């Protein structure tokens, strides 16, 4: 049972790390600011979600696991809001002559 949980952790954490790499590659290679913002907010938050999912079997207690999920929820909400705010600033700048 423990080895099964460890294998799950390794797979999920590995996938999360790969998604972080994909997000950074998008950040380095995409042509303009809005598409870079897209790469950053999508890939990195999915990576964080996979890492949290992988760490859940390693959590010492139920409250510890719940707190991990809360970190992920806060990350999702704040990343969505912050991406909208940054994109709104960019849009208003484009409107201005």
């Amino acid at each position, binding site marked *: 049972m423990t080895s099964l949980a460890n294998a799950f952790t390794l797979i999920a954490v590995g996938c999360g790390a790969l998604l972080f790499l994909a997000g950074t590659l998008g950040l380095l290679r995409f042509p303009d600011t809005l598409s*870079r913002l897209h790469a950053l907010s999508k890939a990195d938050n999915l990576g964080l979600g996979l890492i949290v999912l992988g760490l859940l079997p390693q959590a010492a207690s139920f409250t510890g696991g719940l707190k991990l999920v809360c970190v992920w929820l*806060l990350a999702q909400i704040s*990343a969505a809001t912050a991406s909208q705010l940054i994109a709104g600033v960019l849009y*208003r700048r484009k409107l201005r002559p």
Partner: protein
Amino acid sequence: MADLLTGAALFILVVTALGLFKVLRSEIAAERMMAVQLLGTGGAAAVLLLGAASSSPAMTDVALLLMLLAAVSCAAFAFGQPSLGPDASEQAEDEA
């Protein structure tokens, strides 16, 4: 197990540093705020992994704090920008 988790944390730190280097070199202010966002997400992931590797649950609080600071600083950046206001934006749409 702890070694592998620490390795994953180091990998994410290196990847985040690469992204930060690129974003910080940019001239646009919004891209610098993207650096803050990247630091929040990547830093939280690395801190969570390190906390699981060293089995110290207090590291979760650090990750929460990092995410909170990134969110608040992005909101402060957006409110600090000069806005066109509702009337001005309608006017701009008419002109366009």
